């Protein structure tokens, strides 16, 4: 997707501490998120996800590099006017009622009182908090606070959403509801950038995935490209005498083992095309086998490997 850039990070370095106790949380990352994209930002605890997101929001200042949001320097009022943000730990004023909190945040985003009166009940219903508008937030559970966090993030229909740990604190029903909200926002063309530990969520929602490890981006690819090398489809077949190997199969460098051929294909579409070509060529398919690693498997191997590439290299 090549829309206007919404998030532009160039050579970002963020360090904490001073002198000998300096810790480099983010180590020279560069990344773009374009208009209408849904990008998942994944990494282990301490990888630098939250630091990057806090820099995007202007809570933390870069040690080096530039961070721009909608063309404005991160953290400026102008850059925040078009963003909805959900913090990693969603905690809100315990002395307020849910309605009052949304009135505060909606008001800060420029919504009029009449707009707020109209929107708040709908929004509460959408995030599963119907009828809770007059409840004090000190009586809200963690999951309810997270739902309210989503409501405050989308109250002004922002063009871009930045969520730090998307479904933290939500139960399975909450996660499902959140996914529906995000799918709706995505289909409405909103730009979404979120960090998450829920890799199934990333797989199902994102156009693109950025993996960060020890402060550096180790993988940046579309979900399709990323998943390609994680799949393995094996075919064992026998070719009729005198027939040429179909190009759709030959491209994957089949190996001859006695009278039988063995080929390993990674892309599901290529696999389907190869099987169709073999059938058309009159080949006898002896067996097929598939092994699909999930993004989670890949993520785990990435985190456990010393070099942060999971022994696979960069998919981008």
């Amino acid at each position, binding site marked *: 997707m090549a829309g206007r850039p919404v998030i532009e990070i160039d050579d970002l370095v963020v360090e904490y501490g001073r002198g000998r106790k300096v810790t480099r949380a983010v180590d020279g990352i560069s990344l773009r998120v374009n208009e209408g994209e849904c990008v998942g930002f994944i990494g282990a605890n301490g990888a630098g996800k939250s630091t990057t997101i806090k820099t995007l*929001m202007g809570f933390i200042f870069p040690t080096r590099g530039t961070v721009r949001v909608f063309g404005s320097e991160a953290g400026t009022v102008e850059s925040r006017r078009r*963003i909805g943000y959900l*913090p990693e730990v969603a905690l809100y*004023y315990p002395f307020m009622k849910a309605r009052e909190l949304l009135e505060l945040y909606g008001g800060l985003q420029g919504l009029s009182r009449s707009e707020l009166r109209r929107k708040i009940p709908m929004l509460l219903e959408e995030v599963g908090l119907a009828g809770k508008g007059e409840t004090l937030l000190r009586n809200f559970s963690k999951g309810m606070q997270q739902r309210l966090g989503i409501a405050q993030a989308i109250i002004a229909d922002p063009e871009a959403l930045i969520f730090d740990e998307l479904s933290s604190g939500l139960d399975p029903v909450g996660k499902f509801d959140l996914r529906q909200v995000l799918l709706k*926002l995505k289909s409405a063309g909103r730009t979404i950038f979120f960090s998450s530990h829920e890799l199934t969520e990333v797989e199902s929602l994102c156009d693109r995935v950025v993996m960060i490890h020890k402060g550096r981006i180790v993988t940046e690819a579309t979900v399709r490209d990323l998943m390609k090398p994680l799949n393995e489809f094996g075919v064992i077949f026998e070719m009729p005498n005198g027939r040429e190997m179909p190009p759709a199969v030959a491209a994957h460098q089949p190996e001859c083992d006695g009278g039988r051929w063995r080929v390993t294909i990674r892309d599901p579409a290529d696999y389907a095309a190869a099987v169709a070509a073999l059938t058309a060529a009159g080949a006898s398919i002896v067996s097929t086998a598939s092994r699909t690693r999930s993004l989670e498997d890949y993520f785990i191997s990435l985190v456990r490997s010393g070099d942060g590439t999971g022994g696979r290299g960069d998919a981008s």
Partner: protein
Amino acid sequence: MSTDSAAIPAPESSLRPVALVARAVVLETVRRREFYVLAIFMGIFLAGALIAEIVGIENPATGTFILDLGLSLCVVFSQLVTLLTAARQIPDELEARTLHPLLAKPVSRGQCLMGKWLASVFVGVFALGVMLLMGWVPAPKMERYYDLTLLQALVLQVAAFCVIAALALLSSLFIPKMLNMVLLAIIVFKSSTIIGFLQARAAGTALEDVVRWLTGYIPDFSHFNLVQAYTGGVEPVGFETFTLRLAYAAVLSTIYLAAAVWVFNRRTV
């Protein structure tokens, strides 16, 4: 949610975010029921004053003592309310992690601080008003007092709240909450003693000018206290003196607030 159009709200007046932040602080103060504690204190005083009225006071000096005590309590408690409200704002928000959702909205850190400052002053004024009803109205007035002196005393108290709130917000960015509250309480109630002590120690030394310059930034809250002047039957201060004291408060509040905004804008949250 209407996702049919990405509505970008028009840039707001810079006052609305300030008012919204201030409203939240006032709401918190009301819901935390801190006024109730003060009301109980004042209720005890009120009961004492009423008993004195019923029993009857023959000595005017005793009546003036009760009036002086009532007004002094009003001033002390309302200054404390202002100080406690302002000093806990940023530390509490950081501790409760409520600052991030707030600062993620299109509100500048300066507007955020201004809202909190305004609310702290408002809370002080409200507390003063409520406590005056209980501390001044029922107290016996048996000697000659100047109403204009009382009015000046009240206006100068509001000026003192402005300075206290600004200073408390600034120092809360550096000093842990409880320590900040204690130090500020010492400054608010003993500033003239501290300033006099420091200047006396430095007098005649090479540091005299430096100390005089530095102590100029410590607010002398005795300039804002006309309660004893009122109960002592002293005439109102002249217009020039009164205006100068207000200007003193305005300058100090502006310096402290500007410094607080400068520091807060550069601080990681």
